[in-house]
């Protein structure tokens, strides 16, 4: 047993922070926080805080990555130096490059790139505070920011993490569970549809466990999707809609 590892992470059917196995941490999300960005959003899972901004479609620089048939998507994931207890060296790391890539691939599944040929869509995801599931929070924020920017999409992307702690399958890993749990798996789906666009896992599990975890993750993503939907509609709620104009 490592230093700082709690003896048991599940006591009387409750997790360390008092949640049940299939419960999320408190989720809060907001759309349109940044005035200068075309689209922006924040997404919080408890103490995990992700901020996303979208710029574009805009002219491509450097010119050589331009595609005459479709838009190019560029994702940048970064953790703030103050986001964890130990300072993170600013700038890109192996981990940041990897996550940027998987976010890019997940988002590429829903965007209609053909509508804006010869342009680039820049998506920035900054983790301001990290407490596990940062890539899930980042992806949720990014898909909201893209919708806010008016980028044409098939659907939103909803993401959550599942894991195994003390032999039990749990939803939304947090803090110590992530550090000392057996398995951690990030899953993202297209809205509440049955289509997975991101799946990353570490640890050793059985086939039965994996199937159960996927089921739980899909339920979690559907829950996130409802919240995302609400947050987007919230932004334009003020007053009913007018029928003049044109």
């Amino acid at each position: 047993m490592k230093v700082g590892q709690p003896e048991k992470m599940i006591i009387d059917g409750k997790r360390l922070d008092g949640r049940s196995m299939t419960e999320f941490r408190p989720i809060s999300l907001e759309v349109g926080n940044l005035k200068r960005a075309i689209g922006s959003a924040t997404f919080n899972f408890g103490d995990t805080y992700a901020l996303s901004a979208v710029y574009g479609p805009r002219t491509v620089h450097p010119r050589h990555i331009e595609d005459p048939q479709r838009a190019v998507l560029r994702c940048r994931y970064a953790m703030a130096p103050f986001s964890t207890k130990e300072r993170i060296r600013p700038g890109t790391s192996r981990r940041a490059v990897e996550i940027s890539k998987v976010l890019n691939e997940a988002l590429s599944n829903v965007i209609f790139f053909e509508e804006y040929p010869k342009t680039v869509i820049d998506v920035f995801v900054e983790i301001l505070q990290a407490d596990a599931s940062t890539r899930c929070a980042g992806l949720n924020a990014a898909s909201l920011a893209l919708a806010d920017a008016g980028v044409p999409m098939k659907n939103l992307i909803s993401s959550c993490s599942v894991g195994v702690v003390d032999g039990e399958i749990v939803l939304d890993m947090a803090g110590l569970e992530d550090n000392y749990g057996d398995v951690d798996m990030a899953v993202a789906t297209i809205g509440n549809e049955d289509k997975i666009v991101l799946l990353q896992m570490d640890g050793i599990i059985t086939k039965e466990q994996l199937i159960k975890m996927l089921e739980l993750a899909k339920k979690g993503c559907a829950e996130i999707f409802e919240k995302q939907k609400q947050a987007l509609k919230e932004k334009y709620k003020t007053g009913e809609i007018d029928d003049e104009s044109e």
Partner: protein
Amino acid sequence: MDERKSEVLIKERQLVIPGETLATGLDFLPSSGSFRANNEIKSKILGLTKIKDRFIGVIPLSGVYVPKVGDGVIGFVEDMQTTIWIVDMNSPYDAILPLGEAVGEYVDLNKTDISVYYDIGDVIYAKVLNISKSKRVQLTMNDHRARKLIGGRILKITPSKVPRVIGKAGSMIELIKEKTKCQIIVGQNGVIWIKGEKESLASKTILMIEKESHISGLTDKITKFLEKSD
């Protein structure tokens, strides 16, 4: 057969998000802002629905300007080559203004520098003449409204809110022009040029319209706002 039954699931001018199902069945067709997925018509963007006969579309609430032929736009001259100007028009695509479309007289290129007509940094109001398949946009000054804009101030708003600033048959913009005694030109690309005594009041009003464009009773509110500041 149940699958063949067509049904509209939304009301006119309802707020929808990307992926939201607008209608089922094959009797309806997607127009701009929507797409077909098997038996359903879904929204591509965050916006307000628009139903016209069999066509169901979505009007965007945000997004960048995509040029259309015939649009009047306000652009900034960015660069100059021997016979063309390159114009930035607040869009992902830069536009080209060829000498022939800009000047109505014969120009001897050996003797004249074309910067006497338009120079880098100038602001112009021009019309979109043509857009090639590879998104090369051509502008023209062959329009009675096209000209160089001198003095005044520039304001940028979300391009999808331009129809609200103009109002029904220009009612809103006429109201602002009358109350503030300013010259105002609104480009379809979301760039607005204002010149006159009460420039700041006019720009405040326009920014207010942009912020509250989806709220009802906007014209009354703007009238009150303008009268109060008189």
